[in-house]
């Protein structure tokens, strides 16, 4: 289960603004006055309309984007120090597998950079691929796997060095609905087994509600947090959870919070142009 309310936050974000300089001297405020605490072991989703800065916020936490103002503390350290300490595992919408490496070698990649010895790398890669149920595909090349399988490799890779925080940026946005639901269960199982803190960016209200301990609702222009919805669905969650009245109440609550923030989010969670926008802003 998620961390209790009284434990010290693992991620402490206070007063974060992010302003991108536009092309013709214009400025875009991607994030404005963000305050957020994430507790150890929590599963927190960031949801919001296109351009609300949820991907930027994820990157600010991961020290891939520097905030213009404000601070991010991770485990009492700066985000940069946390990145250097390898506290983060990243999973993007695309698997971003290295196509010249086999499945197994992709999982070993972070371990090579961390300078782990060969035997340990092999052992760890095997364990992680078994965790994502790809134990029999270790020697395959990425192109031989389906999209869902590739994304599972990306998750195995992110978990291989036991990061404290898993940052997931719309990891299942490119998958079909059925695969996505299966991957959701998979992520919950892995989360339950590893006890990692997860920060999860999504477009999909049902996905956010099904997975999370808390859903952080954001709105655009400027990107800010408009509400945080506690998800009190009992765990472990399964298909049955998706049929309870409480599940639908929570979906309605998140949807209304989004509407109140002026956002229009696709209920089915189909990825939209937001992705490209967010990436354009970051790049």
């Amino acid at each position, binding site marked *: 289960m998620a961390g209790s309310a009284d434990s010290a936050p693992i991620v402490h974000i206070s007063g974060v603004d992010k302003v991108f300089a536009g092309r013709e001297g214009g400025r875009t405020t991607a994030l404005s006055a963000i305050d957020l605490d994430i507790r150890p072991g929590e599963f927190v989703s960031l949801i919001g309309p296109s351009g609300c800065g949820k991907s930027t916020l994820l990157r600010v936490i991961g020290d891939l984007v520097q905030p213009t103002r404000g601070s991010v503390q991770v485990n009492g350290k700066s985000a940069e120090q946390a990145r250097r300490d390898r506290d983060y595992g990243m999973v993007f919408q695309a698997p*971003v597998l290295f196509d010249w490496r086999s499945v197994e070698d992709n999982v070993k990649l972070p371990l090579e*950079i961390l300078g782990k010895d060969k035997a340990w790398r092999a052992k760890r890669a095997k364990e992680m691929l078994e965790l994502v149920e790809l134990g029999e595909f270790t020697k395959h*090349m990425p192109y031989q796997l389906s999209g869902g399988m590739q994304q599972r490799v990306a998750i195995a890779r992110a978990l291989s060095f036991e990061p404290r925080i898993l940052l997931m940026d719309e990891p299942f946005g490119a998958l079909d609905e059925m695969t996505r639901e299966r991957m959701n269960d998979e992520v919950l199982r892995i989360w339950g087994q590893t006890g990692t803190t997860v920060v999860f960016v999504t477009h999909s209200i049902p996905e956010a509600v099904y997975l999370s301990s808390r859903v952080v609702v954001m709105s655009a222009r400027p990107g800010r947090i408009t509400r945080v919805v506690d998800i009190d669905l009992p765990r472990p969650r399964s298909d049955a959870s998706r049929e309870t009245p409480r599940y639908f109440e929570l979906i309605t609550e998140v949807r209304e919070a989004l509407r109140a923030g002026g956002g229009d989010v696709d209920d089915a969670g189909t990825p939209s142009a937001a992705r490209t926008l967010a990436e354009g802003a970051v790049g």
Partner: protein
Amino acid sequence: MTAGPARNEIHLLERELELELEAAQPRIPRLKLRRPVAFVLLVALILVAWEGAKLLGGTPWHAPGAGPGAPVIWNPPFRWTFANDLNLPHVWNIAYAMGQPFQRGADETLLQYLVFAALYTWREAALGFLLGSLLGLGLATFFVHSRLAERAFVPYVIASQTVPIIALAPLIVFAMGQGVLAVVVIATYLTFFPVTIAMLRGLRSFDPRALELLRSYGASRSGVYTKLRLPASVPYLFTALKIAATASIVGAIIGEDTGAIQQGLGRVITTFNQYYATGPEKLWAAIFIAALLGVTFFLIVRLTEIVALRNRQSIDA
């Protein structure tokens, strides 16, 4: 809503399908015959055009290897200068000359002589190719890590190639002294350029998200270079190496000529050029062997490329 077991079945079905699809992919890439066949056809076409021109407008035909007094076996209806025996010797006479001693009283046939010369040239070219590739890789590596250096030096790299090598070769020979070293330097000079330019792109051809990923692992610059930039650039490298392979042969031949090397194709071509009037077949044979050398070197690089990239198939996402 889908019930648990049904979903599991879909899962299994999907995996089965995946396995089947995968099994359907041949492990060993099928030998593609279209290109070799096209190549052979093209060569045949050139030979037909060559001899066709001689059939219509060449010098009266004699049997292969026969002297001028031998019986005429075909008298072409026209007399075209470009198709006479001096400008365009018969293909079979070139082939015949290959089997004859390369000069009066010599033990070696022309073919043997040319093959030895080609191997000698190849040694110099290969050395230049190696040095040039390393230089190109080094320069590109330097430039992609420093925008300032790139802006300052890349124009000079490009300008270096606008100087005709014919003009530059004597200067290099003068500076280095006559000898193999000067030849290798000239081959290097022609080789480093395509590699530099291609690798400037190649070393930047990675997926930017992969860079974010490596940053999230706290990877150093050298980690990014060895794990991402360099492996991602390999397809670009091979494209450049294929150009560099043929360029290095040209460089070595020019260098041998200027550098007064006594062996190698450069020297052979110069000599046969001087004696063209008495044996045009010999120069044509030398040109043929020089071309063959370039093609062979190219094919060696191409085969290495196929082996090196056999497992790489880009995944689009």
